[in-house]
């Protein structure tokens, strides 16, 4: 696994051990071990109801796990509230796109920047940079209410990137995007990874996974059923049965 110490440094950006979450008596996440490495894109795939989004909720702090541990860098964050993890450099997007309808595109991104100490001129500069990266500069002053879903996904991604995250969790980002937008997002995620961010990509689009990801975990009924490099995982017999 990608968690060997090298030269005394822990190179795992996010580490989960025997993570469990029960909903209504059912263990929807069941003893999951997961490691995210800086600069790598890790994919999380699996059938509907496998527990991918719930796992993301546990990692990001939106939901409390019923068992297990989560380490962000060297720091234990299992019980830390969501905003605390965010300020430590853990950013995420949501399956149902999460944007703030009452704010403009630039203000949405600014909310992300401000929570990481970038307010005032520094914040505005950070926002301008992110908007340029995402090709949203022209829409900066536009209210997000009424924008098409594809743009909203980019806005949400922009807000997540604005804090300069060490770990980025991305939930089904390609849903609702057309081919050019998917290509654009793929480029942005690759760039983020290139700058050292550990990216976790929850995705059904296997073509996108194969193109972007270095490693993959396969989740089924709350358990990790396969893990390894992307080639190994896609060749796994159990994985192919799921598709």
């Amino acid at each position, binding site marked *: 696994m990608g968690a060997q110490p090298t030269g005394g440094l822990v190179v795992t950006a996010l580490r989960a051990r025997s993570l469990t979450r029960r*909903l*209504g008596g*059912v263990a*929807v996440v069941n003893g999951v071990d997961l490691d995210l490495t800086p600069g790598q894109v890790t994919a999380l795939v*699996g*059938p*509907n*109801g*496998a*527990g*991918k*989004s*719930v796992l993301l909720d546990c990692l990001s702090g939106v939901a409390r796990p019923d068992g297990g541990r989560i380490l962000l860098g060297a720091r234990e964050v299992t019980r830390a509230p969501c905003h605390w993890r965010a300020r430590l450099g853990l950013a995420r997007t949501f*399956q*149902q796109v999460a944007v703030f309808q009452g704010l403009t595109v630039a203000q949405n991104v600014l909310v992300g920047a401000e929570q990481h100490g970038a307010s005032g001129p520094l914040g505005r500069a950070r926002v301008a940079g992110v908007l340029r990266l995402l090709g949203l500069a022209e829409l900066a002053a536009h209210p997000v209410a009424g924008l*098409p*879903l*594809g*743009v909203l996904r980019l806005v949400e991604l922009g807000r997540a990137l604005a804090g300069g995250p060490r770990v980025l969790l991305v939930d*089904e980002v390609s*849903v*609702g*995007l*057309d*081919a050019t937008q998917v290509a654009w997002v793929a480029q942005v995620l690759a760039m983020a990874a290139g700058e050292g961010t550990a990216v976790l990509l929850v995705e*059904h689009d*296997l073509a996108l996974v194969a193109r972007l990801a270095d490693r993959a975990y396969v989740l089924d009924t709350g358990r990790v059923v396969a893990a390894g490099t992307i080639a190994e995982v896609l060749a796994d017999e159990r994985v192919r049965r*799921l*598709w």
Partner: protein
Amino acid sequence: MTTPLRLALRGVTVRRGPVVRLAGVDIRCPADRLGFLIGRNGSGRTAVLEALAGLVPHHDGTVLLDGRDIGSLAPHRRAALGVVLVPARRAVFPTLTVAETLALAGRPPQPILDVFPELAPLLPRRATALSGGQQQLLALARALLTEPVVLLLDEPDRGLAPSVTARLHEQLAGRTALLTARTLPSWAPSSALVHVLERGRVVWHGEAGELRAASRF
């Protein structure tokens, strides 16, 4: 290939406030064939489905089901006539269990459980306890169970795992259905009727085979 027309929009205009969502659009759904509404986000795909299902009022034109004008009927009357829409998001009832949701169709649920066996263990669960993909599957299963005359699906593949979408596409074969998509899916049969929408207008229509042939050049 000519089959009788099941459902159609004739010169329909839909406005929301000052915004024109559809401008004098003609859409045809021939019997027992798949139809696709292709266009970017905001091109008016969803508005076509909503006008057909009666969710939004239309200003000009007519909505025809088997030659009869159903434009003035409320959504539940159209659903009773077999025009069934599955919206793109939030299409389940939060406090109903899976079994109760399927019971809304008024038929025994076994046929659809045979197609989507992954629903069977979820029957006693509330819809809020399902994942996003499972909710989408439940909404589609409920619609399929009603044996609709015309099925209107807004981006049905959204959030579904590939193994599920494959079975969904099998189920759609031979039905009268109208699906929205951003681009023509590769699984679409070449006999499928395609309408391409741009800014609330139909800019091209014809069979999927023709569109593929045309885009090759």
